[in-house]
């Protein structure tokens, strides 16, 4: 086929344009998060004194802030990565925000509680739940964000999939954090990353195949 002929076919298909990728991603992530939220409210729900804790418990509120500090930058990064002309640059450093916050939290925790309670605070009460429920709560946003990315044109499909995994885990972990009775940054730093790692690796693996275009 001649290129000029192909152009005729493409021009005839001019009206088929999809909605802007940023909108597709926002809708997908919103819908995925909403689905997880509904499942979460039906199966677990936040701690009964959620609103009170927000104003009285520094550790509880801090935990939620750390999780949002993963999810929000990851969303904007995924949006960048969905375009072909994005080059991984300094904006990837936004992913270091949550670990940095968490390190600060750990330092404050170690300085403020007696050393003989460190171990118990770190092991917590239900680390097994934490490791399994975060990936489960991440599933809906994970599928949604990968489908939306499929409609994009990521030059780096593996990274895009991985950050999509981080984003979905950030959403799942934010929900789970509001339920989890363990508030110490020591617990958060030890067990939460497991769920993030699972979703990130899954995203990278799927992304490297499924997000090529």
């Amino acid at each position, binding site marked *: 086929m*001649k290129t*000029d002929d*192909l152009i005729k*076919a493409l*021009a005839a298909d001019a009206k088929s344009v999809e909605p*802007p990728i940023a909108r597709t991603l926002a809708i997908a992530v919103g819908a995925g998060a909403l689905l997880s939220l509904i499942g979460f409210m039906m199966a677990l729900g936040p701690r009964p004194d959620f609103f009170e804790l927000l104003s009285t418990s520094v550790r509880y509120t801090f935990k939620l802030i750390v999780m949002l500090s993963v999810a929000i930058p990851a969303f904007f990064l995924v949006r960048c990565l969905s375009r*072909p*002309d994005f080059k991984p640059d300094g904006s990837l450093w936004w992913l270091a925000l949550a670990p940095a916050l968490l390190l600060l939290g750990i330092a404050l925790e170690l300085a403020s509680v007696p050393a003989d309670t460190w171990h118990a605070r770190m092991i917590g009460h239900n680390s097994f739940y934490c490791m399994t429920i975060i990936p489960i709560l991440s599933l809906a946003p994970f599928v949604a964000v990968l489908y939306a990315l499929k409609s994009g044109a990521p*030059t780096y499909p593996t990274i895009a999939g991985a950050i999509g995994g981080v984003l979905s885990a950030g959403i799942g972990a934010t929900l789970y954090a509001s339920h989890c009775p363990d508030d110490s940054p020591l617990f958060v730093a030890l067990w939460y990353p497991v769920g993030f790692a699972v979703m990130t690796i899954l995203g990278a693996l799927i992304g490297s195949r499924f997000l090529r275009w």
Partner: protein
Amino acid sequence: MLMRAAIAGDEAAYRVLLEKLSQLLRGVVRRGFAGVGVPRDDVEDVVQDVLLAIHLKRHTWDPAMPLGPWVLAITRNKMIDGLRRRGRRPEIAIDLQQFDIEGEDPQASIDAYDVQRVLSSLSDRNRDIVQSISIDGHSARDVADRLGMTEVAVRVALHRSLKSLADMYQEKAE
């Protein structure tokens, strides 16, 4: 400007844009491949692959940004795919800095064989639709009348066919 009109669905503006882009792309791809020893015939395959990608991914262009870097990023990806299809090592620096307009190009009339092969794997009806609109230059309306389909159905079939052309390019690169 043209791309904005194209995204709004202006067929004529879109066609002008794609024609201009195809000339630019041919120069870029040819220069990029020259140093790697890729035959000139292969250039047209990549140009067509890039045009398909521009078409199917035009919603990933941010109208607030310049069009050039977006087109070049797609071109770079598709050149690497093109090298992969030919089993060459894709780790070759491709200089896309120059993006000059070249004049009339006789290569526009050269057939690209990959698309031809890919076309033959479409269903009879879809291939008929694509060829009537592209090679014969009929409108979707005319094709619809001839095949006893609605115009919308013809447009949908055309769009799906273009998508599968792009998908088949991609599969070959893997």
